[in-house]
């Protein structure tokens, strides 16, 4: 039923987000793929909350959304700062601390 189907969908969405983080070089798209993965996790939380009749997972989703909002704000701030410095939002251009 729904509680065994939705975690499978969430797993697919998570993997798509992970592939996106690996293959895209545009920093904004990488941030969007991270949002995709966070949402897949939220969906898993919600379906387990439904299955276990427990609302604690709803609180966890609330906190995940809080962290996602903070992450998006700071991440986009970093993208803007890097773009201003280098005229590029390519993650491969920011490799000063790589090794």
């Amino acid at each position, binding site marked *: 039923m729904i509680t065994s189907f939705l975690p499978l969908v969430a797993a697919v969405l998570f*993997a798509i987000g992970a*592939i996106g983080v690996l*293959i895209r070089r545009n920093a904004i798209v990488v941030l969007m793929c991270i*949002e995709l993965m966070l949402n897949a996790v939220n969906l898993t939380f919600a379906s387990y909350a439904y299955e276990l009749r427990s609302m604690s997972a709803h609180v966890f989703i*609330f906190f995940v959304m809080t962290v996602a909002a903070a*992450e998006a704000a700071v991440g986009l701030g970093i*993208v803007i700062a890097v773009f201003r410095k280098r005229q590029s939002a390519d993650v491969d251009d920011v490799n000063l601390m790589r090794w």
Partner: protein
Amino acid sequence: MLIINVIAFVAIFSALMVVFHRSPMVSVVFLIVNLVCIALFFLFLHAQFLFAIQLIVYAGAIMVLFVFVVMLLNLRQEEEQRPGWRIQRALAFVAGPLLVGALWTALWRRGRSSEAFPGGFSSGFGTAEDIGRLLFNDYLFQFEAASVLLVVAMIGAVVLARRRES
């Protein structure tokens, strides 16, 4: 069940478009479609409050932030191809299905707990009232920590995006 399948199909399709479309603006639009699909799933899962929050905060506020930055930066569309890029891409396409397989195996092999919790839903399940009660009783410290996190993120975003005069 049919409508859930349709929503799942739309969600996965829009997620693929987010990853594989070349234009960041189109990616943002498809991400909004994906977030709305997940909000509809929340509705099916008796999480009405999260449905509203998902639409208002995620599809509304956070996505406006993304749209704003994409518009502001005016990115060139094509991504340059670097040495080693093809190998990384091929490895990603191998690792992705492997990740799906691992997660599906874990999900299929977990213990079934539906029988242990046969009861219906309490009347307030998923409402703002019950989530508020949980937040301000059991998770009060975490709630305050989240507020500190948001303040820090706000200050950090302002400092990072500030134009330095020098």
